[in-house]
């Protein structure tokens, strides 16, 4: 049943194939992720994760593996718990008063919710970019990019800081646009530039995993494309998880897709299916998934 939605998805998958071909050297096979030698991104595994806000059961029994050096997209309709689940991966969920986490989340085998583990240490290894770009308004562009260093590490030399700032701004494809005005306030950039600055800020501390909560939903289409390209490049160095409510974006930009759904309002969200993006969009196992990706609901 080819509807308009399915056609859009097919176009998006074609975009994705095109992009993969562009960014990979011809000799690599299409399923082998390109890795930078010496930089090993980590795997996250969740087992039976249940998330609560007080008594309200928000997300139920999620068991999945997030593979290294790949982009995993979490899709599903509004309110099905994708963002809540994402925030449990770097221990941000528990910052909400009354929020609880049950189950196991392991980073390369280590449980991040172990009672001996400092959440601050977890967040230094697992970075996050938010939906609404949020550069620190009191800091310049330079200081924003270096914020991870300034806020966490002990004193670093100016030269080291300079190199970190340049590396992360280049990594976020923002260097050329801001290299002449590094001392201007971070809030003076356009939306897309601000979001790339937030990405630069996140990668400056060299996390192993990068979580992104609808990073493009506040951006215009041109900026969205720039950020999606960036995500495609970053995955060679990081493991990336992206929450998106835009199916075509998931089809364009991700390697693995996880579909979340709700049975009814008030019920907890749950993981319906997870698999390689191509399969989820063209030949999913569950009927729910097929209904969602072909636009019959959501």
């Amino acid at each position: 049943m080819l509807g308009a939605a399915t056609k859009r998805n097919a176009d998006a998958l074609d975009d994705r194939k095109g992009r993969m071909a562009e960014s990979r050297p011809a000799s690599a096979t299409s399923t082998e992720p390109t890795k930078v030698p010496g930089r090993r991104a980590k795997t996250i595994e969740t087992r039976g994760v249940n998330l609560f806000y007080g008594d309200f059961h928000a997300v139920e029994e999620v068991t999945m593996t997030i593979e290294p050096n790949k982009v995993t997209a979490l899709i599903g309709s509004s309110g099905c718990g994708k963002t809540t689940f994402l925030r449990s991966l770097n221990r941000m969920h528990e910052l909400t008063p009354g929020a609880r986490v049950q189950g196991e989340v392991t980073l390369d085998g280590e449980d991040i919710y172990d009672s001996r583990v400092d959440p601050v240490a977890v967040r230094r290894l697992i970075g996050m970019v938010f939906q609404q770009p949020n550069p620190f308004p009191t800091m310049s562009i330079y200081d924003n990019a270096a914020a991870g260093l300034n806020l966490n590490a002990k004193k670093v030399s100016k030269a080291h800081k300079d190199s970190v700032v340049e590396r992360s701004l280049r990594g976020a494809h923002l260097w050329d646009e801001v290299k002449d005005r590094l001392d201007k306030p971070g809030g003076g950039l356009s939306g897309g530039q601000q979001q790339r600055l937030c990405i630069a800020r996140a990668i400056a501390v060299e996390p192993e995993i990068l979580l992104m909560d609808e990073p493009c939903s506040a951006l215009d289409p041109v900026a969205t494309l720039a950020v999606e390209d960036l995500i495609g490049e970053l995955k060679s160095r990081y493991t990336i998880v992206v929450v998106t409510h835009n199916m075509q974006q998931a089809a364009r930009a991700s390697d693995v897709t996880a579909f979340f759904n709700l049975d009814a309002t008030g019920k907890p969200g749950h993981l319906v299916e997870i698999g390689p993006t191509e399969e989820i969009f063209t030949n999913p196992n569950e009927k729910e998934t097929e209904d969602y990706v072909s636009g019959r609901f959501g």
Partner: protein
Amino acid sequence: MESSVQTLSPDQPSRLLANGLDTRRRIVNIVMTALIAAAFALAMIPLFSLVFEVATRGIPGLSAEFFTADARGVVGGGGAAHAIMGTLVITGVAALISVPIGIMAAIYLNEYGTGRLRRALTFFVDVMTGIPSIVAGLFAYALFEIFFGPGIRLGVMGSVALSVLMIPIVIRSAEEVLKIVPDHLREAAYALGTPKWKTITKIVLPTAFAGLVTGVMIAIARIVGETAPLLVTTGVVDSMNTDPFNGRMQNLAVYAYNEYRSPGVMKQAAYDKAWAAALTLIAIVMILNVAARLVYRRYKTEIR
């Protein structure tokens, strides 16, 4: 082809213009505007009259001597330099006590407080904002009397009394300013792996800086003219004293009161000086308020 857009034909009445510019509504509009303007003028009368009176009566009392000399050993002459200095010292020490306590309490209430303790603290702060100033003064006096015996008069006692009045004001305004700092900035800092206290000192406080300074300056402006608590704590003295821990200290509010109450031999000169002291107090309050606005405008952070 016939146009599908309808236009008004000449004999069809316009529904938009049917009511005309309703005369009755216009009249009501004019009357209400006039009433509101009159009410505003009425409310401004006491302010202008006050400023006018203090200015006209106070200016004769101003002189170079007023600002530079104290009243030591002089009968009927002398200046108010000791009073001006005293006000600055007492208010300064009060700010030194109140600002750290107030801002730290506001940080606790806004960033850490939960549940019952927070509600209790908020309640007590609200109660403190209503304490009569004389009660604050008596509290400070009683406190120092325990350690130093009866009749003790010190500049710092006045500062303590003023702090009791100033702390709740600082807490209230600092709390409001901290609330305005958006949560997404804190989250951005947490996501980078920043501990909570560092997020507060390096992100929240700098973002709120302009508002905090303004709040403090306005709190200072509020207490700088308090007379009752200072009457019972700092005493009356004629000579310059800049040490808050040693002996009586004069200040503008008590000075004005004293010159008016015990004018001595040269009545008119004393009255003039009392008015001049009042004028100086008003000037200090105005300068503080204007400075608060300028600081805010210069240092405020635009939060997108």
